[in-house]
């Protein structure tokens, strides 16, 4: 969803940091995108290239670290892997699973010069 505005959010954080660090060029941007975050890595790559055009981050490589989904199942009382948000627990099939990991969308770090 809305990968274009997310890509702009990324660019804003990158530009702020690059400016603060007096960088002349951004070479690499590293994102952490959770598997449960409803963000398509392919779509964000496409949008990132579009929004960085003409900016300090033009031509920068984009690395996406996928964070696996995890949730706390109320029935099993343990952390279970999750592949979709609001999905069922893989062990007991219950839908009472609270996501605990894999919902993040963060700019982790950038490489500048």
């Amino acid at each position, binding site marked *: 969803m809305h990968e274009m505005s997310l890509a702009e959010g990324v660019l804003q954080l990158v530009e702020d940091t690059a400016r603060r660090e007096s960088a002349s060029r951004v*070479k690499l941007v590293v994102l952490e995108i959770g598997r449960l975050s409803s963000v398509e890595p392919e779509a964000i790559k496409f949008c990132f290239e579009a929004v960085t055009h003409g900016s300090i981050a033009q031509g920068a490589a984009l690395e996406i670290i996928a964070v696996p989904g995890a949730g706390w199942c109320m029935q099993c009382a343990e952390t279970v892997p999750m592949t979709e948000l609001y999905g069922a627990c893989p062990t007991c099939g219950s839908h009472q699973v609270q996501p605990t990991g894999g919902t993040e969308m963060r700019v982790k770090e950038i490489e500048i010069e």
Partner: protein
Amino acid sequence: MCTVCGCGVGEAKIEGGAHEHTHVHEDGTVHTHTHEHGHDHDHGHEDAPLGVHSHTHHHSDGSEHSHAHVHDGEHAHQHGEEHHHHEHGVAGDLDYGTGPARAHVPGMSQARMVQIEQDILSKNNTYAAANRAAFDDRGIFALNLVSSPGSGKTTLLVKTIELLKDKVAISVVEGDQQTSNDAERIRATGVPALQINTGKGCHLDGHMVGHAMQRLQPADESLFLIENVGNLVCPAAFDLGEHHKVAILSVTEGEDKPLKYPDMFAAADVMLLNKCDLLPYLEFDADLAEANARRVNPHLTIFRVSATSGDGLSAWLDWIQSGLEAQRAKRSESVDALKRRVAELERQLAAK
């Protein structure tokens, strides 16, 4: 702004969106200019010596102007609220010693990694938090109404306003890609409404709502209603500073919509099942729709209503009233706490 719905960027426009701001320079000169709001307005201070800086304004009509000026941090922008669009660097110094070796060697690459560790939506969340604080300070109850296009949001709003406007002050923000039709429908009820056209954007964001709040100047202890762009996807992720998201599902849609668009129903606290007067003519299983919604969000409060016939609206209105009362109570509590603090300080002062 999605690849999904093909919408883009930079066309957001708040009704009557020109705004004016004033720069005060160190030498005492003041200049004021007016411009439309869709612009870029960033400038760095780091790489310019001794506070001289230049910046460029990109106006929504495509024109640009640059100017350089000297100042020592006096930089008043009258946006009416505290936030402004300028990012000031730490200092005006030139620093070449920030490379990996903390030294500058000509010709040597200064490539280095910088940790950011920030949420992509952090900018929006900051604006939203400021909005929420402003609502709470003034005891305002704010709702963000979300749904797909055609679920009857505006009709429901009009009806709600008609039934409540004698009891509480109401202001409304209307989000749509184009036209101000909805704001006009709301204004016809006699309450102030502001249209935000998001252009190619598919959702309202915290920044837009902050500006709308300044424009509307909602009364203390009033009801602030935000009708988001008709879209069940993107508005789920963008906090506007509201107290609750209210999702509206109409019985002319599918019962499985909460399963197809789970983010929205999970983000909402209340769901209104609208157009219930049509149930006898449809093969819509209202119980199944409610069960589906509760599957993605077990805590959802659900009201079955019909904006046209008025059925079921009293429960919804009661819910709004209790939200308003909670906001008022919270405000008077903090006012009372401040009064007690003032009294205590006065007592201490008198004792000295």
